[in-house]
């Protein structure tokens, strides 16, 4: 068998289109998912009552069902209930809900390991529970669980390949599309695999760069 990558050239636009979709899905999901996790972790950890339990239910459902089923439920299930939803929106919502649930649990581990003295200092200074969460608890909690957070975001980026199943034109969809036309499966999937690998490595690098700035306080260097 001979490898012939030139057969991909006519489809470079398709690959780029798929890459762009995967990229924006990932970027929006990362920000929205983490934002969601910040809210969910706060309510679950520091409030009690019905909201806390509802969000607990949400986290458990997401963490104990397959992502593709969640995606199908949103895409096929919601229209059946009379709520129309487009494929890209269903993909985005599924990804945000997924990352939000997992990240909330990761973040809670960081919040729970906050020293009691930090809470007491915040309270003695008159900060409310929400103010204390926002100004005192959150950043050190993130710094403690940051490696897990990075991995989770990468997992969701890689898992986004599944959205091709509801015909969202992402990188995997592009690969399937090309393969079904030029029958050069090996070349196509090799290229796409490399792109995913680069995306994952790039994401990790970017996260680490941001982390070094955000969590500069952990290094004891000169001030």
């Amino acid at each position, binding site marked *: 068998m001979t490898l012939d990558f030139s057969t991909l050239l006519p489809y470079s636009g398709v690959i780029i289109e798929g890459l762009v979709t995967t990229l924006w899905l990932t970027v929006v999901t990362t920000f929205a998912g983490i934002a969601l996790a910040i809210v969910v972790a706060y309510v679950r950890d520091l409030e009690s009552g019905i909201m806390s339990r509802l969000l607990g239910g949400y986290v458990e459902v997401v963490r104990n069902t397959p992502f593709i089923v969640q995606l199908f439920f949103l895409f096929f299930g919601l229209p059946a209930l009379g709520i129309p939803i487009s494929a890209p929106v269903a993909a985005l919502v599924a990804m945000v809900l997924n990352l939000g649930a997992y990240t909330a649990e990761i973040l809670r581990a960081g919040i729970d390991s906050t*020293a009691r*003295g*930090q809470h*007491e*200092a915040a*309270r*003695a*200074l*008159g*900060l*409310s529970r929400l*103010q204390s969460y926002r*100004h*005192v608890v959150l*950043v*050190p909690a993130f*710094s403690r669980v940051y490696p897990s957070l990075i991995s989770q975001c990468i997992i969701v980026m890689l898992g986004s390949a599944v959205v091709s199943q509801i015909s969202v034109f992402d990188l995997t969809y592009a690969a399937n599309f090309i393969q079904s036309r030029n029958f050069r499966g090996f070349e196509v999937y090799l290229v796409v695999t490399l792109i995913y690998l680069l995306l994952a490595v790039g994401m990790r690098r970017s996260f680490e760069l941001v982390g070094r700035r955000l*969590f*500069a*306080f*952990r*290094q*004891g*260097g*000169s*001030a």
Partner: protein
Amino acid sequence: MALVSVKDLHKSFGDLEVLKGIDLEIESGEVVAVIGRSGSGKSTFLRCLNQLEQHDWGTIHLADQRLDGTAMSPGELSQNVGIVFQSFNLFPHKTVVENVMLAPLVVKQTPRAEARKIAEEVLDKVGMLEKIDAYPAQLSGGQQQRVAIARALAMDPKVLLCDEVTSALDPELVGEVLLVLESLAKEGMTLILVTHEMKFARDVSHRVVFMHQGRIHESGDPQTLFTQPKTPELAQFIASVL
């Protein structure tokens, strides 16, 4: 009238009664050292004064205002009673000046420029102005504790509580923190200190309160108390720590 007035304060943890009725009046500008063995209730008493612990019975008044229960919001309370902890409890992700500015900004809604000015003033007072942009991890224990004092002072409290503020420090760093407290005392700050520094209690405080088994066992001016203890418990305690 007394600045702080504590009446019949009781506090239990489960079946263990830690405070068995504390009565204490403290005048404005007074420096009161609370001494006693571990488990005598002195830290719990101190923590009741800013409601980090809620007592079960009794009242605490500040000036003529009731302080305990739901009488004061945490925000109001923090502007009346400040506390410095044994373990500093600085916020690790905030620089020195951010640590000091946080409560004025967030709780008091002080404008940023003004909060910065206040922070610089109190940091100057504790001799930490030069380290204004350092993170706590970059400071020695003594320096961290001085920042913690500045952070409490930034809320302009009427009373400053100090909970064994030198106990976590290396011996050579104790002096710089005590020096700051001494200068605060001279300025007329009302201080209530739980302390194991007997020399400091003797030299700086106006009154020493000896707690024993959840009660104020003996109190008086430091000279008399340390040289002529009335009760055998205090005599024994003094002998064991000096």
